[in-house]
């Protein structure tokens, strides 16, 4: 032995004789700065390129062979002196969310999931920590996650994800304010760094890693201030030193949200003061993210934070008025001079309180049952468990063309039992169509229109233009808005029967 170096000779035991050195090297080594030759006379070093062509990852992919043409497609790649990251997405979409980590080119045995670190929702993430930026346990099969290094690693990793998300966001070239917010959140969601993500919110609750703190500071928020509707970051809102922040939750679908923003902006912008901010929140805000965000950003300068309701927005216009036709409305129904934007609609403004001896977890079907019972439209004996203990309030638009015609014809209607019955049923139908239901929308439109024609025929009035197509009606445009949006503030409250 003349030159420096080391030779280790293992005299193999029975277990050792079964070892496949080639497979073992390929399993453990994912990248090496030193060439490795396999075989005493090998002239070419082994080639290492950690991709889904890796034997183990092929095995992973084979678990999905029942999915036609399943494969991993490289989505993003990043490398610097400390870290190397590759994101592969599954094609077709499959919610895999797995990460494999190597440290200094050697595989860490454990598989990682979204509970450990953010991983794109349909993807496989390969990470090689090129430097000593992770602590491993003695077996080197697990990354230690309770060490300062793990936080530094996460900080760096999240910063890389933020770069990916920023690139995706800019590629979409969003133009409208709403587009900008939606595109930004979609980009964050793709990389599992959305504040609405459960794991993410839990993982970084406290203390925050610097990149996540930066992400939170920079999140674009659609906000209405005295200066108008604009996008500000949480940091910029904090510099406003607001005295009040009001949250307005937007609803799906997109058209509904845009309508809501338009209504709130047009109604509120002139009455705001310099230090007031209305924050439009995304529907992902299930965990009170925005409230937590402002508590964190504003710290001791925390302003009053409240929810902005439709009642706040429409104020006096939601006040019921006494009209002699009130008695033909369903229980809880009142007329009101609704704002033009809600022309022709029926708006629930206070909830029904219902007692039941069953437990239901599905809001939609619960609400549909309550609506049927509340409007007296349920077939006898179909929902014996539901007892209405407090009637909600439904506002009918007194200024709607057709409703106005009926109000003016009050004496005529009340002089005819047949007309009275038809009008009573019409108002029920109108309410039903505006509340959570599982009926076919087209059928409902047909029934409403048909009822109007039948009533006018008996009143010997002119056949009206369809309610759906009337120029002063918001009906067709805002149908979804009422059934999915406005009614949420007046959802039935279901109480279990006290034992």
């Amino acid at each position: 032995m003349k030159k420096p170096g080391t030779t280790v000779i293992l005299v193999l035991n029975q277990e050792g004789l079964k070892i496949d050195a080639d497979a073992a090297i390929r399993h453990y080594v994912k990248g090496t700065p030193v060439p490795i030759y396999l075989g005493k006379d090998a002239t070419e070093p082994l080639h290492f390129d950690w991709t889904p062509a890796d034997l183990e990852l092929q095995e992973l992919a084979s678990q999905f062979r029942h999915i036609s043409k399943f494969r991993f497609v490289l989505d993003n790649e990043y490398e610097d002196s400390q870290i190397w990251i590759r994101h592969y997405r599954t094609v077709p979409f499959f919610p895999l969310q797995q990460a494999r980590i190597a440290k200094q080119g050697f595989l860490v045995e454990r598989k990682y999931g979204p509970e450990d670190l953010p991983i794109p929702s349909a993807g496989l993430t390969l990470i090689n920590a090129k430097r000593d930026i992770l602590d491993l346990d003695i077996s080197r099969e697990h990354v230690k996650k309770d060490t300062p290094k793990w936080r530094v690693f996460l900080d760096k990793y999240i910063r890389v994800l933020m770069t990916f998300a920023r690139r995706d966001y800019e590629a979409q070239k969003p133009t409208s304010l709403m587009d900008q917010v939606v595109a930004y959140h979609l980009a964050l969601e793709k990389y599992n760094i959305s504040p609405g993500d459960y794991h993410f919110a839990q993982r970084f609750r406290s203390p925050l890693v610097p990149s996540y703190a930066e992400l939170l500071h920079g999140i674009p928020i659609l906000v209405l201030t005295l200066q108008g509707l604009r996008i500000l970051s949480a940091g910029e809102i904090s510099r406003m030193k607001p005295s009040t922040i009001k949250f307005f939750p937007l609803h799906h679908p997109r058209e509904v949200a845009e309508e809501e923003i338009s209504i709130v902006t047009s109604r509120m912008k002139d009455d705001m003061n310099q230090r007031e901010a209305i924050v439009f929140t995304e529907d992902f805000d299930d965990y009170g993210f925005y409230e937590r965000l402002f508590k964190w950003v504003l710290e001791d300068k925390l302003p009053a934070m409240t929810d902005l309701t439709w009642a706040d927005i429409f104020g006096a216009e939601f006040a019921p008025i006494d009209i002699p036709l009130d008695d033909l409305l369903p229980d809880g129904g009142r007329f009101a001079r609704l704002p033009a934007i809600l022309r022709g609609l029926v708006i629930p403004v206070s909830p029904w309180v219902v007692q039941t001896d069953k437990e239901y977890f599905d809001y939609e079907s619960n609400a549909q049952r309550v609506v049927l019972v509340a409007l007296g439209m349920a077939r006898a004996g179909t929902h014996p468990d539901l007892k209405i203990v407090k009637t909600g309030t439904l506002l009918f638009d007194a200024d709607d063309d057709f409703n106005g015609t009926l109000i003016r014809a009050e004496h005529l209607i009340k002089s005819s039992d047949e007309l009275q019955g038809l009008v009573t049923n019409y108002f029920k139908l109108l309410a039903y169509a505006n509340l959570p239901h599982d009926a076919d929308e087209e059928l409902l439109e047909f029934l409403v229109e048909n009822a109007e024609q039948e009533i006018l025929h008996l009143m010997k009035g002119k056949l009206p233009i369809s309610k759906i197509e009337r120029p002063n009606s918001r009906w067709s445009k805002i149908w979804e808005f009422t059934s999915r949006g406005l009614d949420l503030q007046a959802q039935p409250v279901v109480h279990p029967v006290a034992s």
Partner: protein
Amino acid sequence: MDHVKGILAEHKIPIDYVELNVFAKGFIDKPISFRLDENRITQILIGEALYSRKDVAIRELLQNSVDACRLRKFLEPNEPVAIRIYREGNRLVVEDNGTGMDYDIALSFLANKGLSYYASEEFRAMREQMDFDPVSRWGLGILSCFLIASELVIETKRQGKDPCRFTIANVGEGMALRGGLLEEARDDCHSGP
């Protein structure tokens, strides 16, 4: 009581200020030393329960070789480095032309489980100028070889030092470590094709 007096003296508290009225109650006032069963600890560190795969020894040897090669590259930047692994009958050979060890270094790290050269003062002194972090850390990986081997032979040479050879066998049964300077030559690791 001597122990208490010792503490007082260490903190320069005059004994007169303290009312020495302390008695041991419910326990024996004698130091208790803990002993570890070396064979059992060695068995644990070999890794039947530590590692999920038996071929982990290959990873550990490659890691050591990578570190040694990178260190040599740092010390002698123009020297090509490489690792070679091959089977020869019932033997698995892993060789590198890394920095190697001299007799004293090798003896020290082979005889003392849990001691790594990369945690040594000598290495730490160089580390700040290096552009790499060693993979090896615990100095225990070599023991994992005994998951697949009954005997381990290590031949090593450091620049300017005599080569040496060590043989480790019967690990867990009193572990026999034999070592000495190597007189016969061996084929040096090819540093490439």
